[in-house]
């Protein structure tokens, strides 16, 4: 009895020790997440109800900042640009990523090389890549040189400098750089499709095109959702490229003004912290909704 009791208390002491060590080990990460993620979330919510400047609270606005967002032409412009960007970039990235994944997933020679090559643009940093793109798409750049030689006459269009093509050029740039990432996500899902499904299709005499559309594509459903959401979230947050090519202004003629760029300018240049936070909350709501939808869909779909 006494033996059992003392053993129990040793165990108890041991588990207290284990718990204390556990808290100590997670203390810094948890503190960091609380201070630099959770607190900012609450703080942003709080000050989005105020006119808030560099020196702090100016006056309480209630939902005034949110009402202003609804009537802010420049925000509307940024929102439309961002949505237009997403509508083009998301399906393109998905299609290209899927095509690359299906190709690279075959028993090919140099498969590792191809996979590495397609993912490489995603490894190089956004700013370095945008600098390269700015050069290639400049009025004396490689693209115009190519067009000139095809047309047989000089062609000098400044792709990032013209409001009619600036955003489209960023779209093309990012479809190129991120399709490799989408390829990796699709590859991970492709691995989960059992090979006997394909064997059955081959025995039934289904061609590869038919096999793809009738078997692979539907079985990739979880992958489609996942890639779509990752791609949409990434598109909503487009910033680096737009900032670089426009020098931070969102020009020419606000053609590269995106939600995050507008948020940045409102906060850093305009020092309108309350209003910028309200924009951040709107963006957060959009992203959170999408993430929840993704989690729900993903929770139900089995990836195996």
């Amino acid at each position, binding site marked *: 009895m006494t033996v059992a009791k003392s053993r129990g208390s040793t165990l108890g002491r041991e588990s207290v020790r*284990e718990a204390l*060590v*556990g808290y100590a*080990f*997670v203390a*810094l*990460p*948890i503190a*960091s997440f*609380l201070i*630099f*993620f*959770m607190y*900012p*979330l609450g703080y942003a919510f709080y*000050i989005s109800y105020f006119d808030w400047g560099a020196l702090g609270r100016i006056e309480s606005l209630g939902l005034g900042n949110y009402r202003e967002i609804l009537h802010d032409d420049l925000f509307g412009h940024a929102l439309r640009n961002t949505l237009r960007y997403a509508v083009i970039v998301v399906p393109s990235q998905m299609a290209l990523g899927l095509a690359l994944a299906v*190709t690279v*997933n*075959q*028993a090919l020679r140099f498969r590792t*090389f191809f996979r*590495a*090559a397609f*993912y490489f643009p995603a*490894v*190089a*940093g956004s*700013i*370095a*890549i945008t600098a*390269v793109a700015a*050069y*290639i798409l*400049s009025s004396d750049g*490689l693209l115009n040189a190519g067009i000139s030689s095809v047309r047989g006459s000089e062609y000098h269009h400044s792709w990032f400098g013209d409001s009619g093509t600036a955003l489209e050029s960023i779209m093309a740039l990012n479809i190129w750089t991120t399709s490799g990432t989408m390829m990796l*996500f699709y*590859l991970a899902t*492709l691995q989960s499709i059992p*090979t006997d499904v394909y064997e059955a*299709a*081959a025995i039934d*005499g289904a061609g*590869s095109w038919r096999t793809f559309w009738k078997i692979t594509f539907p079985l990739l459903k*979880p992958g489609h959702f*996942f890639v779509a959401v990752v791609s949409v979230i990434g598109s909503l947050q487009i*910033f*680096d490229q737009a*900032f*670089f090519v426009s*020098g931070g202004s969102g020009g020419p003629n606000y053609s590269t003004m995106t939600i995050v760029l507008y948020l940045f300018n409102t906060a*850093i240049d305009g020092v309108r*912290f309350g209003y*910028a*936070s309200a924009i*951040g909350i709107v*963006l*957060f709501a959009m*992203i959170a909704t999408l993430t929840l939808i993704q989690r729900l869909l993903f929770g139900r*779909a089995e*990836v195996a």
Partner: protein
Amino acid sequence: MADTPERDLPPVRPVVAAEQLATEGEVAIGTAPAGIPGRERSEKSRRVIVYILLFFVALLFFIPFFWSVTTSLKTLPESVGFNLLPEHPSIRAYRQAISAYDFNRYFLNSVFLSVVVTMSTLFLSSLGGYAFARLRFPGREVLFFLVLATLMIPHELRLVPVFQMLIDFPVLHVNLLGTYQGYFLINLVSATSLFLMRQYFLTIPKDYEEAAKLDGAGYFKTYWRVMLPLAGPALAAVTILTFQGAWNDFFWPLIIFLGDESKYTLPLGMFQFRTQFYTLWPELMAASVIAIVPIALIYVFFQRYFVAGVTAAGVKG
């Protein structure tokens, strides 16, 4: 239940693949469907087409990089032409970028920031990951849920609060804006890395630790001597993911260091250079090459770990 407390934690689907990738170090590639006899000829011509197409696409993916490298070896007048290769290749642009435009300094800043952030993330995410995977303490599930929840918060939303916090840090009342410490502080550890480490530790059999426990090893010693050496692939994935993220980071350096050129990183330096010297293409391309080559080298040697890291980071989106 006491034996498998990890089952109580919320499952996160997309990461299963990442976990497997981390464990195996590479995507397990399934065998392609077997061909059917009599179809071989069309199969063969199809293959040839596929290879040609693939090489063409790969070439298309590489042209911009090739072009930036050759341009960085050209002179300014030559850079506006269509010469594939420079007539008189020279490293003048690199010399200019490094000495006249301070890319030397930006490079060192980038190295410094990336190395420190990577080391602190490695240590804290593995230590925390070990605790979440193995140690039992009240509130563990709640705290782990908190880790996952941070993944949902976009960093743009944190811009204003973090900016204000750095200007006048609560309680301490110090100004960390424009300091390296400020950058380190907000990048101590990432939820993605912590998550990746925890998932990996869960796959390691408990026998190893039990042996260590019998030898009288404490928790930290078990983590340091037993768990870390077994977690090579996950540590590699976290290293690459974090280093790449910090090396290419533009958003936070822009917010923290804007205006103080002595603290600029390569991306910030390139931005500043581009706005000041609009068309000095060879120098800008030299800077791009300087920014891309280190990460490209790491990529070439550790490609398989990139795959694991990226797929896991996908949770973050």
